[in-house]
């Protein structure tokens, strides 16, 4: 998906700043509400029952306004993936609108930045996506487990794309330590194969190719096809000509000619799947 000129500019330091503003506004609101209750307790109600009722309504309204902003933002992000696939400009415009909203609950703010990171990753703008992924992962609270796994997978992909095997190793080892769903485990398996080949260990994925290919049938077809191209290159380098020919013939059935050429050049990469939230 090509990026547009109207794309939202988001930097990793924006996340900390926005989380700080959200927290400060929520604290201010809670302080104001607490102060109102204290005032009501201290000032005898006989002096102004109307004023007390108005203040209580104001407390409720303030709290409702804060909650509605978060709820509305979360609802608008629920279908973001479909919007991004169907209308990239509309997706960027929506992100620009949502980024300006304050205050948001911590988990919703993190989810918003996660969506930006996913979008940039799909656009292969790893220079923007990777720092965002790292900034989100650095936050201990509020990041759902599924998003954490996907952020790590994106970091592995981006690191391998740039030849940063140390970065890929670090993210991959963190993924290995996590409890993953079946889909996430299969995607981790594909990333593991790419990593082993990137560090020059072509023999490792070839040794376990029967199991790998059997399990990989459960991957989304683009990832499954791309795995064949990767394994073909490894088999060819190991001198397994018959196996390489077999893998390439299968790759031609699973991927188009353009995709195979771009995969071989590193210009295209099917992405690990984003999880709905």
């Amino acid at each position: 998906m090509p990026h547009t000129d109207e794309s939202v500019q988001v930097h990793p330091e924006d996340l900390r700043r926005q989380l700080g503003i959200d927290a400060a506004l929520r604290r201010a609101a809670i302080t104001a509400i607490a102060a109102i209750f204290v005032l009501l307790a201290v000032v005898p109600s006989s002096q102004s029952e109307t004023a007390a009722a108005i203040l209580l309504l104001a407390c409720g309204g303030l709290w409702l306004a804060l909650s509605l902003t978060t709820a509305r933002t979360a609802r608008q992000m629920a279908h973001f993936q479909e919007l991004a696939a169907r209308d990239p400009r509309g997706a960027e415009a929506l992100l620009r609108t949502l980024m300006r909203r304050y205050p948001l609950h911590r988990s919703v703010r993190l989810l918003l930045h996660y969506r930006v990171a996913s979008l940039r990753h799909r656009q292969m703008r790893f220079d923007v996506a990777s720092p965002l992924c790292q900034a989100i992962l650095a936050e201990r609270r509020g990041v759902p487990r599924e998003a954490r796994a996907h952020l790590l997978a994106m970091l592995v992909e981006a690191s391998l794309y740039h030849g940063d095997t140390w970065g890929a190793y670090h993210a991959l080892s963190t993924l290995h330590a996590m409890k993953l769903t079946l889909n996430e485990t299969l995607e981790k398996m594909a990333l593991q194969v790419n990593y082993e080949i990137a560090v020059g260990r072509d023999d490792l994925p070839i040794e376990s190719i029967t199991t790998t290919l059997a399990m990989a049938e459960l991957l989304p077809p683009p990832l499954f096809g791309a795995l064949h191209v990767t394994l073909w290159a490894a088999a060819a380098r190991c001198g397994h000509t018959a196996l390489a020919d077999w893998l390439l013939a299968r790759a031609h059935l699973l991927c188009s000619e353009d995709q195979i050429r771009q995969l071989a050049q590193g210009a295209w990469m099917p992405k690990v799947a984003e999880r709905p939230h």
Partner: protein
Amino acid sequence: MLRRYVPALRLAWQILPRMTTIPSFHGRAVAFLAHGLDQVGAYDAAITTYDYMIDRLPSHHPGSQQMRIARSIAHLNNGQLADADTGLRGLRRQVAAQSYPPIQATLRFACLLQQIRTNHFAEACEEAETLQEGLRPLGVEAGYGHALMALAWHVQSDAPHHTLGGDEAATWWSRATRLLPPGVLTARFPELDAVDLAYPAAPTLSSVINAPATNVAGT
């Protein structure tokens, strides 16, 4: 999905009562049951299960479209050609209007199966050029479509004006068996037995793994 359908069906049936309190998981378990019943040839039960899911999904939902295509395929496998035709007619325009490649590919496969089941082999062969690209989003499951195209060409190879029908059938059968084993193909569509006997299958992974590696330096 590793084609161990009977144990998978048994497990899905056992866990189904526990999913009733979580509608999304319950729906997935029922969809899984429908798929498994379809694969083991219990088409009447599969169609009933597909009907259950279709009644509970919005008509424009991609899941509903997928279920309806799968139901039409089950109708075709069960000999209910008129029901299949009614289902597929309604879906063609709907699916063309949206852009989910796997659903479009599944519909393409269903239409091919309809042509085979209604003996329109010549029509199927005329559309062969776009079939490989059309079924690509299905991954290995595209092998079923390639096998049916091989059957169409095999039948046409007896026709006087299709002198290359045998070559085409062999090519499509090779593609099909490169994606799926011949036993899996013939178990799903028994009419492919004739094609399996007539044409060689592609080499299997185990046969090429055991081939000796050449010198890495290329000598």
